[in-house]
């Protein structure tokens, strides 16, 4: 895991062409190999933050850096950083296996190797038997799994997930969360997970960054150790409640 960079975000601000200020002086750090959740209301700038981290949008000021363990900056190359967007973004004419293998194909990996690697992540994402289906033949939850598998296929060191569960039901979300957890533990990638769900954040994250109105409101370190993250336990609901309270404060509906 030592080769995974930390992601350091310093004083990041972003004014969109429309004049909307999507981010104001946002600072936080994603631990190397850690899983950080970003939580906040719609429109608070979460997607913008992730897009800047991925190099798809530019910050107006401030910066995001990927730092190696020795403190040197690591310029992120294609394939080392992977994004799973809010929508699955699959090519409708490609079978699942060819959608998953796309990043490898674009990186010039040969047919045989990329199919083998795609099949391995398809298995890890719980999509066995769906290899030769087209996206139109899959449920919403399965499409998100395909998108997740595609993000993982290059074995990235930084993984950015933008509300991967927002379009699926609670039942599928829990299953997908198990998948995300396993995948993160297997890969050890430095992961940023944008979510709306407090229980999802508590279940998956080491740290929870609570955002509001384009700013970081507070950062919550999840006190539960990984082994005891049982959704049905008392400790788990207490932790959820704690984060809920921070959220309520951020939303201004209770006084701290």
């Amino acid at each position: 895991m030592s080769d995974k960079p930390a992601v350091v975000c310093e004083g990041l601000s972003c004014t969109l062409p429309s004049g909307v200020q999507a981010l104001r002086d946002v600072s936080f750090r994603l631990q190397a190999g850690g899983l950080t959740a970003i939580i906040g209301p719609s429109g608070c700038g979460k997607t913008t933050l992730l897009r800047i981290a991925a190099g798809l949008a530019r910050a107006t000021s401030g910066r995001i850096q990927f730092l190696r363990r020795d403190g040197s900056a690591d310029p992120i190359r294609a394939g080392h950083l992977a994004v799973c967007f809010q929508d699955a973004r699959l090519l409708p004419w490609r079978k699942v296996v060819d959608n998953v293998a796309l990043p490898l194909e674009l990186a010039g990996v040969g047919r045989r190797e990329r199919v083998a690697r795609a099949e391995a992540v398809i298995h890890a994402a719980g999509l066995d038997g769906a290899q030769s289906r087209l996206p139109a033949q899959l449920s919403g939850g399965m499409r998100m799994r395909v998108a997740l598998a595609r993000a993982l296929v290059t074995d990235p060191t930084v993984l950015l997930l933008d509300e991967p569960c927002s379009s699926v039901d609670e039942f599928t979300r829990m299953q997908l969360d198990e998948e995300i957890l396993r995948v993160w533990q297997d890969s050890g990638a430095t992961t940023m997970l944008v979510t709306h769900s407090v229980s999802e954040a508590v279940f998956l994250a080491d740290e929870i960054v609570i955002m509001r109105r384009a700013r970081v409101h507070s950062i919550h370190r999840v006190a539960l150790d990984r082994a005891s993250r049982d959704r049905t336990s008392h400790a788990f609901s207490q932790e959820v409640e704690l984060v809920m309270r921070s959220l309520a404060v951020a939303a201004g509906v209770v006084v701290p």
Partner: protein
Amino acid sequence: MKRLSEKMREIAAPLIAVGVIAVAWEVAVIATGVSPLLLPRPTAIGQTMWMNSEMLLSATVQTAIAALSGFAIATTLGIIGGSVIAAVPVLRRSIYPLATIVQMVPLVAVAPLFVIWLGFGLPTAIAASAVVAVFPVLAATIDGLRSVDHGLREIFALAGASTWTRWRKLDLPASIPAIMTGLRIAAGLSVIGAIVGEFVSGYGGAHAPLGIVVMTAMREARTDLVFGAVALSAIVGFVLFGVVSIVGWLLVNRWHASGQSEMEIRR
């Protein structure tokens, strides 16, 4: 392939309508006693076509070659040109509006120019066919490419794909539904263009195309033969249109959720 047979039925329905109209026509001509010089009966047209089948078949082949070649050139130039124009903003602002205006020039007026440039015969018919058919392909390609999903483009940007790679693996396949719409229009236009080209440049003899058959028959006041040749040119257009429609449908159908319910029910 249940949906394919549905598509076939869609194509068969207008054929049946043609049959009904032919019967009504026949009855109307007999009932009113119109001179066959003005309006021959469908059966008389059929008889004439049968008696001249060898000549008409050869003419149809000639015209089909011109239309098909024109269509192929229009498809190639339309897709390449459209892709270049869509990719280069300066061209999109300059050439595209210009092409829209040029497209409004009546072909019949321009066709003689092709005779000057290309001489009499097949090349002029092909050129005329390509020129009328290219615009809908060009416009459809540009429309298709401009509406490629931005989110999908980001997937390619993240992977560091070149413009050329993205065009091959994303832009072009994603534009196929739009391009197919353009090709269906171009299919009909390519036959019209070929016939107009033949009017001005074709010559008689063993390899006379349909355009020349029509002109000759008109001069000889053989109305039934004019109708026969016109019917055959319509059939060339119809077949081309049908083939393009079926190919387009086969390519695109499986992408959409509409194909899903059926596939899942069968399972």
